[in-house]
């Protein structure tokens, strides 16, 4: 390739670099991102709307055929993972990196390697400054002492004085930007395999369930819900035991709202629950005399096939945990949850022919046939909870936390620490002092005046600050 072929390419690269190195561009990108974030809050997002319809059907129905299709096509229905949103984020990240690289070395020189002897005219022209008579052979002595008392770092060199404090404040924006990058990296990491996992498990009281994406099991020792006196829920919690792959119990812990369980980088969060009927205590009663023959315990979650009760043999013919009637008028179960259990039992008395009967443990009075010699009476029904646990693994999380910490340090350093510096030189028996700060000019002006007043009370009176209004 000849030189002419290479040059425009390099130009493009240069121009791209310059583009991203511009704070003007970064500002525009920030506003664009702010505006781009609005749409997703006004349009219901995929996976968040309350409907079982797939997006292709939901949106045209909800927003009309034309607008709905438009939303789907532009990715507005998943705004925060759409190509345009990610592009903007990516451009901001690029801008952050390039801006910081561009400015790092100049800032290092300016802040960490200050020039104690700049051009005299530069010092004289600084916005803050004063002069005082130079006395003796150590003209800066008193000034240096005053500055040191104010925690300035003072350098005397080549007959000049330089002092500054709050250098960290100048690095604040860079620290902020690094923190921000870390947050973006931490969030982006979930795109890598094995970094991110999101699952949901249901664990019934007493049940042991393998935690997906991990090598351990969790056993529920019981779900519990507490209430305030008003009846409002106060807390939800699942008492659990962690069991490792070899079947050894590792630890016992309670998972509650805001208190997840963490084990091997996998976290379990209390997320929801439901209650089922568990065990029913049933009495077998002689219909005629009303006398109780015997009792037995019926497990409503997993009933046995056969029960032997006081000489009677009860065989389970069918079981409907959530009894209802289907479209054909046939008995059916509406769900696998124990909401309204119904049983068909074949009862063989000790000395008579077997017969078949229905029994509804929650409604023992409901009978299809009231001529049978015996009937069932429910004495007690227990409740069994099933706890819904969110299973999360996110290896990007530590990066995000560090990023947030760094960013916080950065913004506080930026705005709560001002870099203040003074230069001084001697000329014609006078010490000329010039001061500069990057923020809070007013309070620096006050400090400068206080130092000036200290060194030359006659010339510098402690006047009132800048007046905001005319007198």
């Amino acid at each position, binding site marked *: 390739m000849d030189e002419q072929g290479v040059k425009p390419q390099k130009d493009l690269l240069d121009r791209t670099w310059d583009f991203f190195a511009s*704070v*003007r561009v*970064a*500002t525009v990108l*920030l*506003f664009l*991102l*702010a505006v781009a*974030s*609005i749409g*997703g*809050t*006004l349009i219901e*997002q995929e996976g968040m709307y309350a409907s079982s319809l797939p997006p292709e059907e939901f949106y045209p129905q909800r927003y009309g055929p034309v607008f709905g299709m438009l939303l789907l096509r532009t990715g507005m229905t998943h705004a*925060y993972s759409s190509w345009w949103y990610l592009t903007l984020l990516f451009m901001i990240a690029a801008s952050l990196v390039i801006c910081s690289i561009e400015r790092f070395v100049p800032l290092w020189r300016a802040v960490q390697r200050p020039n104690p002897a700049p051009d005299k005219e530069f010092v004289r022209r600084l916005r803050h400054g004063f002069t005082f008579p130079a006395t003796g052979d150590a003209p800066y002595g008193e000034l240096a002492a005053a500055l040191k008392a104010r925690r300035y770092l003072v350098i005397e060199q080549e007959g000049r004085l330089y002092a500054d404090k709050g250098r960290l404040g100048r690095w604040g924006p860079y620290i902020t930007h690094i923190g921000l990058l870390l947050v973006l990296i931490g*969030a982006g990491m979930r795109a890598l395999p094995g970094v991110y996992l*999101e699952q949901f498990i249901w664990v019934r009281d007493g049940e042991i369930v393998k935690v997906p994406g991990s090598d351990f099991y969790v056993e529920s020792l019981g779900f519990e819900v507490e209430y*305030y006196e*008003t009846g*409002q*829920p*106060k*807390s*939800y919690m699942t008492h659990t035991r962690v069991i490792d792959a070899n079947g050894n119990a590792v630890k016992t812990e309670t998972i*509650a*709202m*805001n*208190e*997840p369980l963490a084990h091997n980088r996998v*976290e379990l*969060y209390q*997320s929801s629950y439901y209650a089922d009927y568990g065990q029913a205590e049933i009495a077998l009663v002689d219909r005629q005399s009303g006398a109780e023959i015997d009792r037995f315990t019926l497990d409503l979650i997993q009933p046995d096939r056969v029960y032997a009760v006081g000489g009677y043999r009860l065989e389970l013919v069918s079981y409907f945990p959530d009894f209802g009637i289907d479209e054909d008028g046939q008995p059916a179960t509406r769900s696998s949850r124990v909401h309204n259990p119904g049983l068909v039992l074949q009862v063989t008395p000790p000395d008579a022919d077997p017969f078949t009967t229905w029994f509804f443990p929650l409604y023992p009075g409901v009978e299809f046939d009231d001529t049978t010699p015996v009937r069932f009476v429910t004495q007690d029904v227990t409740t069994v909870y099933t706890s819904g646990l*969110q299973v*999360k693994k996110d290896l990007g*999380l530590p990066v*995000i*936390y560090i990023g*947030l910490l760094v*960013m*916080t340090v950065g*913004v*506080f350093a*930026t*705005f*709560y620490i001002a870099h203040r510096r003074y230069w001084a030189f001697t000329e014609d028996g006078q010490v000329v002092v010039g001061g500069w700060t990057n*923020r*809070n*000019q*007013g*309070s620096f002006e006050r400090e400068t005046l206080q130092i000036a007043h200290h060194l030359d009370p006659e010339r510098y009176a402690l006047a*009132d*600050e*800048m*007046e*905001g*209004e*005319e*007198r």
Partner: protein
Amino acid sequence: MIQVSSYLFLGAFVAYLASAVLYVTRLTLRRRDPRYFDLADRLGSHGYKAAVAGVILQGLAIAARWIGSGQVPLANMFEYMSFMGWSIMLFFVILSAWYKLPGLGAFVAPVGVVVIAYASVFPTEVRPLVPVLQSVWLPLHVSFAALGEGAFAVSFGAALMYLLRVRKEQTNQWEEAALEFTFFCGAILTGFIVLALGFKIGGYSAEVTNLAGGVTVLEYTLPPFIGPVGSVRGEATFLGLQLPLVHAPTWMRGAYAAKNLNTLLLSTVAGTILYGLIRLTARVPLRELGTRAVGNMNPKLLDEVSYRGIAVGFPLFTLGALVFAMIWAQKAWGRYWAWDPKETWALITWLFYSGYLHMRIVRGWEGRPAAWVAALGFVIVMFTLVGVNLLVSGMHSYV
């Protein structure tokens, strides 16, 4: 203790109101005649004292409520908004100590009063915390966010003053319209608060049938001129009028959409009347009134105060609205970020103020354009607190 707290709160409100009135009177007197300067300035220093007293009283009110209820009083809309009002006044008091700019009080103290009054529109009783709210991250998240927003409010006041001050230097039709619109929006917000508080004190309530969003009966605290889908005329009355007059359009399916539309309509009507009254009495546009009030205050100082508000508020807001919010969301739901509308609006606010901070270091954008952004930033804050609740709902529906 809760009762004590509400008396203290009332006392603080009266103090803020007095402060606002004193500051406004001060400016009015000053503009009338230089002879009144001394009297005016005495009023101004009383205004400052009233603001300080209000901040102390409200601080005690918050402490009393905390002790009385045994939980940090930052868990519902009343507690949040009143805390924000407190932080506005707190930063006003602090910034006034830093800068000699008593004129600021005439613009910021009324904002504080409006926010506190808005807080009082919400139910004030203490409710026990639902499980998700029982976390130290809740008070941290909420208090830092509100502190940041309080500083942004002061910045808003100063930015508005700056824009009014430099208005004449270079007239631009759009800016003129936008300034006037800002006052108009303020009037609507005030109208809303007057209506909501008036009807709350009057004890008005109406129940109408609702067929949208799974809520069957909608309780209105303002007269339901616009009823929900499914409501029938005559279900409610107000001054002998048979209400509701009309339905909300059928595409508004949110459970509370009709109620919010009704509130918006009534507030706009009340706000327009209020705006019209001031406009007719003053016989000049409100922006002109504002410009006269600002007089020839030092624009550089106004600009600096506006910047300083954001410089102080930005780190607090970052910590509260993003950092603590993310940690809490992670602890509670296992996801630090869920793109919930309110959460996203906090991000929008934050990006917007980041944009402002960068504008300040771009030559040519640091003056008026930046001041507009500073003013608009607080409008976004208020939208997040008021508008997002009205328009969309999400995880934050309990506040």
